[in-house]
């Protein structure tokens, strides 16, 4: 599904990712954890193709294609989805209209028939209902004046409608209370299947109680410094990231000598 190999990324001339490698197979859910400033959000942005994140070394292969040669819209059409940490408001643009335009742009690009307004609205209402989202949010401007929780639900609604092959969830849990966290997680879990993969980027382990990952990776100083199963996340929760820094330091010391 996804193969990231020795990825080096600079932002404003500053190295953020320094040799990150990660392979995700179909149907897998990977959690990426790590301290602030480790490069977690950079990973999400690079995958989605945001300007200003310059890949200076390494490669990313997505479903057999070279992801780095594709624009953000082409990546979306190929089946990649990024749930934003801070979803962006677009004043004056109707939420349902936005989503339908995006969905149909993707369908047309893939040679599928467009979904008509009625068919779309029926589907959107169902999905919104499952996320316990107020129908009215569909008729408001995209994320404009939405609460933090409404924005995150809206991201998951988009994901449910767009049905991506690979979803990258960037700190989707931040700013959610316990109930909202449960609802959003259930929404994500409903989308898990053997063909769809996910990368869940999070700071806290509590999200992983709801979305149980197949693998957990720890990102520190631009690289993955530890990988393991769900128990790794629990260890991080109990012991923090400090032990990793020590391990990292001792490794650097070893390399220097």
């Amino acid at each position, binding site marked *: 599904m996804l193969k990231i190999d020795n990825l080096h990324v600079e932002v404003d001339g500053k190295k953020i990712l320094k040799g990150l490698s990660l392979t995700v197979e179909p149907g897998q859910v990977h959690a990426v954890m790590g301290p602030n400033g480790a490069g977690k959000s950079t990973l999400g942005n690079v995958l989605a193709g945001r300007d200003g994140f310059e890949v200076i070394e390494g490669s990313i292969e997505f479903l057999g294609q070279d992801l780095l040669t594709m624009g953000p*819209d082409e990546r979306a059409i190929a089946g990649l989805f990024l749930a934003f940490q801070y979803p962006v408001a677009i004043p*004056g643009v109707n939420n349902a209209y936005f989503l339908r335009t995006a969905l149909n742009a993707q369908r047309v*690009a893939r040679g599928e028939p467009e979904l008509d307004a009625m068919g779309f609205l029926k589907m959107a209402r169902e999905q919104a209902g499952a996320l316990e989202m107020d129908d009215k949010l569909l008729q408001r401007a995209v994320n404009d004046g939405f609460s933090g929780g409404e924005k995150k639900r809206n991201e998951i609604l988009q994901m449910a409608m767009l049905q991506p092959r690979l979803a990258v969830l960037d700190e989707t849990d931040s700013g959610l209370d316990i109930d909202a966290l449960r609802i959003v997680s259930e929404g994500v879990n409903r989308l898990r299947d053997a063909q769809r993969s996910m990368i869940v980027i999070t700071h806290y382990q509590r999200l992983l109680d709801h979305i149980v990952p197949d693998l957990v990776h720890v990102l520190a100083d631009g690289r993955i410094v530890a990988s393991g199963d769900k128990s790794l996340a629990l260890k991080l929760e109990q012991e923090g990231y400090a032990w990793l820094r020590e391990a990292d330091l001792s490794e650097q010391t070893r390399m220097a000598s």
Partner: protein
Amino acid sequence: MSNAQIEQLIDSRYKHGFVTDIDSDTVPPGLDEDVIRFISAKKGEPEWLTEWRLQAYRHWLTMTAPDWAKLDVPAIDFQAISYYSAPKKESDKPQSLDEVDPKLLETYDKLGVPLHERARLAGVAVDAVFDSVSVTTTFKEKLADAGVIFCSFSEAVKDHPELVKKYLGTVVPTGDNFFAALNSAVFTDGSFVYIPEGVRCPMELSTYFRINAINTGQFERTLIIAEKGSYVSYLEGCTAPMRDENQLHAAVVELIALEDAEIKYSTVQNWYPGDENGKGGIYNFVTKRGDCQGDRSRISWTQVETGSAITWKYPSCILRGDDSSGEFYSVALTHNYQQADTGTKMIHLGKNTKSRIISKGISAGHGQNSYRGLVKVAKGADKARNFTQCDSLLIGKQCGAHTFPYIESTNPSAQIEHEATTSRIGEDQLFYCQSRGLDEETAVAMIVNGFCKEVFQELPMEFAVEARALLEVSLEGAVG
């Protein structure tokens, strides 16, 4: 030489200079009283109107072109302009769409202009444009039944001189400003609308349907009178680019709303903006003003300005009647090297008068866009209220947006609110749209249309749809 002698000389020059030329179609470039007499004679105008023009011209001679706007206006040589040329003969026009510039046709296609309209807009000979003639005929019958007068300004001078004489120049006096004075002296044609008392005009009035509106030329004059309790919605212009050889345009529009009357005036202006290097393009200096004379009268201006190289335009309302209200909704877009200095004046004179200003400026490329607005509350305008919101959107890094709000209030009970924002089309917003599968142009168009929504919803339905398409076409190549 005495004054009388000078006048005599001028008269005789007129007589001898132009008598033989009176059948000619064009005057040579230049402007003097002879030219004005020629225009007036050519149109068969009554003496009072000739005098009115001359008085405007004499005033104009004492004036200088305004330079306070944030515009870089090249010097205009007013003696190099020809002030009268008769409409082209049918035989000189393109005889079919095959003879029309393919680029123009391509734009019509993008805007979705109906096939039968394209020929007329492209200036194809009228014989070939049969559809619009029949539309006009049915339209005129319906209006006549309601007692509405809707005709060219020249026709109004002939058929309804008492109305023209009563109202012409009462809202925009001949000496109001440099360009209004020039227009008053040399205007060639325009539109006239009269809505009788208590009549709700049965349809939107559009210059689109007035077949002779196409050749009204560069100095257009419009006068709209809404009698007590009447209502009219007037649409000026057209989203499709029209052919026009004249570089300088200086129109005057006067609206008069009597007691309980309402006038909605919508404009879409899409004249040639010049090329991507800023060469060519129309200079548009317009004076538009409405007089809410009667109590509870209402005037609303909505404009979508995407064309012209230079736009200088401030549709305004004089809120004279008690409880009268004025509104101004504007979208102005400048791309490439276009410049716009536009806004409104709301003059509160009556009690409980209300005004509302929503201005949306969009700058792309090297475009410069200024909002300039005055809210004035006179001493007697108790409890006047104004709300102003002006938002600017920047696309790219070379363009500019400027806001010049002026507030003058001499009544302590006035309530004036002003909100302003400037934002750059967010890379965040663009990336967000693209990450959902939208290409860059679709994303920009969507964001810009969202930004303009409050104004577009004031436009009549079909006009709003056209305006949206127009913004998309006007912004092509704005990003990337």
